[in-house]
């Protein structure tokens, strides 16, 4: 367990998340105080130096995003904290909220101050409704003590935070869909342009950041960027909270420095595969992520090294699958998820999933048609090239990488024998 670190998660277990006084006693709100003493540009420079790639999964550079959001003209802007965390095998945001809600609020206030926003919205996934009272309590206490609301800590800066939940759809984790959901519409992505940074929630310039991203911002503002980038590698500095799950002995959310290998993550932190089974594959970044075979387990967990193997950090999910599961059954479980979660708006995603699901079912049953593999691959590629939003683009990542790494599992004759 010594391979984990404690920077973003440093407050976990150190204070009572229901008590602002308890948070203050461990040095809470230093980050806001430090931020308010700086200019927006200073904070953007710090964010750029920290190289925090968006932790929701899209990995867009936070400093750049903030810089763009700050330069969009408008005296009424919005910051949204994306706490939808719908990606299967991802629960690190929940961990942050449960253990350190005040730091998250600090991150939002800092983001709001940096980009010039007056209102913040936390979009909490509906399945996390048990956390509503915890968050609302934190907001209320911050309002009372002047860390949220008008003239924060006696400054000219005012920022209000609102808590929202949708109806429970995976696609609402996508920025524009999330906005539609807050506006009371059904969860379907918006057409771009206009981009949400210019015309987002209620047509206002909008910045959307993930929970972990905002928590890092607060931690960095509290301790200084050097304390953060001393972790990790030069290309991928800092730390990341991963959600380790599946066939490992010790599943859970762990903060790691970038650069550990997948082997270290799965075996040293996760305790390895239970019951003496062997590693079959792992999927990184949730259901929309790509899968890798056991043979590349020594790949370091950094943006660049994973990209070389065709993998992504994504949401930070690390799903471990051992040899008790057939590859095709695993692919089916992913397909089942997307057939449930596609919003249905665009043809490639709606119809592509419909068709590919039927083909996967035939593989599962051991009776694929001669052209099925080609058809599935062809339409999976159409989905990733032509779908309306990220959901459709990435829904077939697992299938396509499974075909690449485990071709024998899709071999007609072998499938028929099984």
């Amino acid at each position, binding site marked *: 367990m010594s391979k984990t670190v404690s920077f973003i998660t440093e407050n976990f277990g150190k204070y009572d998340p229901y008590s602002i006084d308890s948070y203050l006693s461990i040095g809470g709100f230093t980050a806001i105080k430090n931020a308010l003493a700086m200019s927006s540009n200073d904070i953007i420079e710090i964010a750029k130096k920290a190289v925090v790639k968006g932790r929701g999964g899209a990995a867009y550079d936070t400093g750049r995003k903030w810089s763009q959001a700050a330069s969009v003209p408008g005296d009424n802007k919005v910051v949204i904290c994306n706490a939808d965390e719908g990606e299967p095998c991802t629960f690190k945001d929940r961990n942050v909220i449960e253990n350190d809600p005040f730091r998250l609020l600090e991150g939002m206030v800092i983001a709001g101050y940096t980009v010039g926003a007056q209102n913040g919205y936390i979009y909490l996934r509906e399945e996390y409704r048990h956390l509503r009272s915890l968050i609302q309590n934190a907001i209320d206490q911050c309002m009372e003590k002047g860390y949220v609301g008008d003239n924060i800590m006696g400054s000219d800066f005012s920022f209000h935070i609102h808590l929202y939940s949708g109806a429970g759809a995976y696609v609402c984790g996508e920025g524009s869909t999330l906005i539609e959901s807050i506006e009371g519409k059904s969860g379907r992505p918006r057409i771009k342009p206009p981009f949400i940074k210019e015309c987002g929630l209620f047509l206002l310039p909008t910045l959307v950041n993930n929970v972990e991203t905002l928590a890092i911002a607060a931690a960095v503002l509290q301790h200084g960027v050097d304390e953060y980038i001393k972790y990790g590698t030069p290309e991928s500095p800092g730390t990341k909270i991963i959600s380790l799950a599946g066939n490992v002995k010790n599943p859970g959310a762990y903060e790691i420095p970038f650069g550990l290998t997948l082997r270290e993550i799965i075996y040293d932190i996760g305790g390895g595969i239970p019951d003496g089974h062997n590693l079959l594959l792992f999927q990184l970044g949730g259901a929309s992520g790509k899968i890798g075979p056991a043979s590349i387990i020594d790949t370091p967990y950094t943006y660049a090294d994973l990209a070389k193997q065709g993998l992504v950090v994504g949401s930070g999910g690390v799903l471990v699958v051992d040899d008790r599961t057939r590859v095709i059954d695993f692919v089916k479980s992913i397909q089942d998820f997307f057939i449930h979660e596609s919003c*249905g708006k*665009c043809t*490639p995603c*709606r119809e592509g999933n*419909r*068709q590919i699901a039927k083909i996967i079912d035939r593989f599962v049953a051991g009776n694929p048609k001669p052209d099925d593999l080609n058809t599935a691959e062809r339409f999976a590629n159409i989905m990733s090239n032509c*779908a309306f939003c990220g959901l459709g683009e990435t829904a077939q990542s697992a299938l396509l990488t499974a075909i690449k790494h485990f071709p024998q599992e899709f071999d007609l004759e072998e499938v028929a024998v099984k």
Partner: protein
Amino acid sequence: MNMVNLKIDNINVTVPDGTTILEAAKKVNVNIPHLCYHPDQAVKANCRVCVVDVAGSKKLAPACSSYVYEGMEVQTNTKKVRDMQKGILELILANHDQDCLKCLRSGNCELQALCQRFNISKTNLDETIEALPLDNTNPSLVRDTAKCIKCDRCVEACQKVQEVHALTHSHRSVHYNVAPAYEMPLEQTFCVLCGQCSAVCPVGAIVEKDDTAMVWDAIQDPKKHVIVQVAPAVRVALGDMFNLPKGSIVTGQMVAALRRLGFDKIFDTNFTADLTIMEEGNELIQRLTKGGTLPMITSCSPGWINFIEGRYDHLLDHLSSCKSPQQMFGALSKSYYADITGIDPKDIYTVSIMPCTAKKFEAKRPEMKTNGVQEVDAVLTTRELGRMIQSAGIDFVGLEEDQFDNPFGIGTGAGAIFGATGGVMEAALRTAYEVITGKELPALEFKGVRGLEGIKECTVDIDGLELKVAVAHGLGNAKKLLKQIDSGESPYAFIEVMACPGGCIGGGGQPIKSTMDVKAKRIDAIYHIDEDLPLRKSHENPAVKELYEKFLGAPLGHKSHELLHTHYHSRGMKYNFKELMNK
């Protein structure tokens, strides 16, 4: 305006900033395939058929929603692009009921045309169709979700243009459907049956209810005297069905074709349009001079009537009590016409050719009865008439022109312009002015109420009496004027509302591909007809004068009230067609 230079398929193009790739490609004669894109609607980008390759971008870009930039290089016809476009078409087709040969839209279906263009053949996709039951329980429209390609054009027409909000989406993923809330049939919604959805549907998922078979049967029935009336907007649109230039005036050929089809008499709804003006104009004068609910609002458009009866039923007093020209004709056909010809009203079969799907419902309203029989027996849309002519093998374009029959064959220019937005208003003003002042109008044209602007208003000086009037087309625009009335801020004495954008020439029953450009051409044609007519004021129509002398007496007289006026009902969300159909 900033101009942008780009290359499409290696051809240099210069277009204004803010142009989409799809529109820019049109400029250089490249027609990028598309299904959800519609020139009159907002960009939706959900069908994805229009994807193209933009240099420097990993993914393909939808041409309908991607804007050009300086130096952009677009390829629309590479192997990758074609494969992807074709694949998307195959996906759509696999969940589309392919009964093309039996479909009303065969030959006029955008999906069919694209499949032909891409040479789509048998694929090994699963073609099990997941659809809702067929919705064919209302008299106007048939919805078949087995053919729906979820392009959203109908939803856009229903929500954004008409603001009726009958059509929306249900469910998600493979269960995603375009349907009324709770997937109810249209008859149990606020649907006004305007048919604008059917006019923009690229396939056969929403079509007019086809009543041609029953008209063929009536024509063949020797016991029936079958007469037909043709609405003013049909003669400037029917030519579309025969590939004539948009906005062609085909009155003569149309009458000739109707005669060949076997109708016993062919009459002109322009005649009863003139009659409507006599009644409605006098009603307005009466409300202005003797007191009555103002503003008075026209009542010719049945989609509009369905709308106000459904959503604004507290404002029904504002409606003119006049029946529409279609129903005035129907009422006269079963009374005056029966009298002068000596034919039993029961044996007269009255057919209307209308640009409108809501007219089918209007004809079935229980109160639309005269002498114990339904005033109008069958309503065909322009599209249905076109199909009947095609079905009879008539070479429409080569027909020698024919003329309407008497006594309902004479219409003035005022009746003709009923087909365009602002037309009823202008016709009414022409008559009201002369009736009130007793003087001849100095200038016939009221340009302020013409054109395609959503809401038009003007003030007319009638010998010192300032009359403020407004015209709205499209129910979204009508709603704005109703809200004004609601808040007590309506400055108008008289309002014309037509449910469909552009007026009846843009009706839900008009030939497919009635874009705003086409509508503008039809409107030009309508005013052209008006200018060419010797008589351009309703009160000068000699046949109308004769009708009052011999039969009706005076406008708003006892007989008029009995035959030509009606009353309106609050309807809530249900039409209760079953009850209507059984009557």
